[in-house]
């Protein structure tokens, strides 16, 4: 039987399959349709230092091969998170599932404050920074679209935290590899590649957007080729581990990301269509490796012939 365990810096996961932030709440939400103990890891919905209300509906729209969302990072805030959500995360850790908390903020200071507030919290293995949030001090331009701002917010979070900091890169940039290099130099322990691609869908007859915000983040199988390309580029340019994500819904998809350089993968939108996707991916990976006599799944990481 293949050893599915992987190492993301100092964090060891029993298998490379995780749930992506914003697609599985804080854990209990998906537990009716998925045995959470099967997961190698789990990334929570983004947490800010204070609660955020999120956007007005409609917040989602289905598009060919995917969906757009503009939830607006509605979240309970750090205090309620520690009080209400951490007990469940503790249970997941007991089941040997890696737990990462996705961190959001509107200023560098806010990211730092969340990181500081989570110090000493044993339920958590790592932080994952969502740097696609608008930087209100810079006119709302996302931290993740500027190398300097991305490095600054990474360094400030690393400085505030006692945990490894993973950084989730935005694909809405000209050169994602240089973003990866910038946050690696700022102290990131791993890179999550990729966040959603900005997109738009409209109602032709009403001539208005389908999302209240006008546009939103595209996810699902439609973005897989983009995500695969970026996973490959970032893993070539950086020396820290890459977590690959974007449109994964089968073991084959997940394995493709690993061959392109991802040490582990995250499953997101597919959870909505089938909450059991992650468990099916783990099973499919095992079968695939067994059939090929692969002893450790980590052997296949970055083995693309290109």
């Amino acid at each position, binding site marked *: 039987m293949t050893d599915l365990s992987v190492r993301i810096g100092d964090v060891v996961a029993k298998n490379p399959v995780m749930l992506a932030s914003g*697609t599985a709440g804080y854990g209990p*939400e998906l537990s*009716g349709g998925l045995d959470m103990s099967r997961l190698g890891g789990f990334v929570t919905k983004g947490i800010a230092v204070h609660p955020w209300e999120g956007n*007005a509906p409609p917040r989602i729209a289905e598009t060919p091969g995917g969906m757009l969302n503009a939830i607006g990072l*509605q979240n*309970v805030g750090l205090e309620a998170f520690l009080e209400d959500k951490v007990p469940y995360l503790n249970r997941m850790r007991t089941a040997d599932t890696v737990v990462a908390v996705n961190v959001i903020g509107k200023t560098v200071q806010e990211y730092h404050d969340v990181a500081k507030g989570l110090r000493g919290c044993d339920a958590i293995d790592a932080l994952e920074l969502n740097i696609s949030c608008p930087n209100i001090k810079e006119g709302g331009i996302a931290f993740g679209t500027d190398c300097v701002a991305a490095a600054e917010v990474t360094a400030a979070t690393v400085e505030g935290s006692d945990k490894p900091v993973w950084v989730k890169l935005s694909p809405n940039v000209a050169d994602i590899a240089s973003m990866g290099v910038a946050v690696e130099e700022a102290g990131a322990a791993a890179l999550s590649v990729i966040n959603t691609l900005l997109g738009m869908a409209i109602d032709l007859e009403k001539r208005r957007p389908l999302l*209240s915000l006008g546009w939103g983040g595209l996810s699902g199988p439609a973005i897989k080729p983009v995500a695969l390309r970026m996973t490959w580029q970032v893993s070539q340019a950086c020396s820290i581990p890459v977590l690959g994500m974007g449109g994964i819904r089968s073991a084959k998809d997940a394995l493709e990301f690993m061959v392109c350089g991802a040490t582990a993968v995250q499953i997101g939108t597919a959870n909505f269509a089938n*909450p059991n996707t992650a468990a099916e991916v783990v099973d499919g990976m095992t079968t695939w490796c067994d059939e090929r006599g692969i002893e450790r799944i980590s052997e296949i990481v970055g083995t693309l012939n290109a």
Partner: protein
Amino acid sequence: MPDSRSTVLENRDLGGGVWLLRFRDPTIADDVGPGQFVMIACSPPYEPLLLRRPFSIQRVEGDVYEVLYRDVGKGTHRMTKMQVGDEVQVLGPLGNSFTMPRPDETAVLLGGGVGIPPMVALADALEAAGHTRWAAYVGVSGIVDEGCFVGFDERWPNDDRVRRATMDGSIGFEGHVVAAWLDRGITGPTRAYACGPMVMLRAVADTAGTHDVPCEVSVETMMGCGVGACMSCVIENRAYRDGDEAARKSMSPYDRWLLACRKGPVFPSDRIVLDDGGFLH
């Protein structure tokens, strides 16, 4: 809340784009409350990803349950192609249920179009609980979509407690369901329940408010997952919108938008803002 495979027993075209879908599935039919819903996968998993669609459960009998749906878009159109014997991935039952009335209260059930099914479920639950003091006012636009009455037609074909209304007067009372309700009058302790288009829910809530009748509504919103993970299906908290500065400050901004799948789909009508900005219907 298991994810289960339900077998199609019947997929009946009721005309006017309205369909009745009956499934056999003991896992889901086991414990359903009136007002709960299921998330139905409209396409086989090997096709490009398509989000599931939420439908209120209309009736449960043994290990069989049924939903009513209207062919309005890509997902529901695919559902019309489901064949007897097909196995369909269904997640449920999800969400909360209506609060049962006090024994002295008359339960008034108001349903519009494909919002009628949860009223059928509630009438069934009331009967099962021995609460025979209920009246239903159900409305459609006319002959064209009278198929929406199927739940009441099959269960209570000739029952004075069920009043049918059509906007064009082709069947039963001419006018909307609130007019039909007021036409019979509100007497004694009453509790109202409603499901239908937002404009109808607003009219029901206004009428209930005017007559001091406690009222619960089941809302339809755009849902991604049905279990609280995607946070798409929100409806606005009235206390947050209408509250003064002090009231607002005492609340978490997180509670401005309530998840219809977890906190609902049934809400006290005065708790939420009954407005979808015209995005649905």
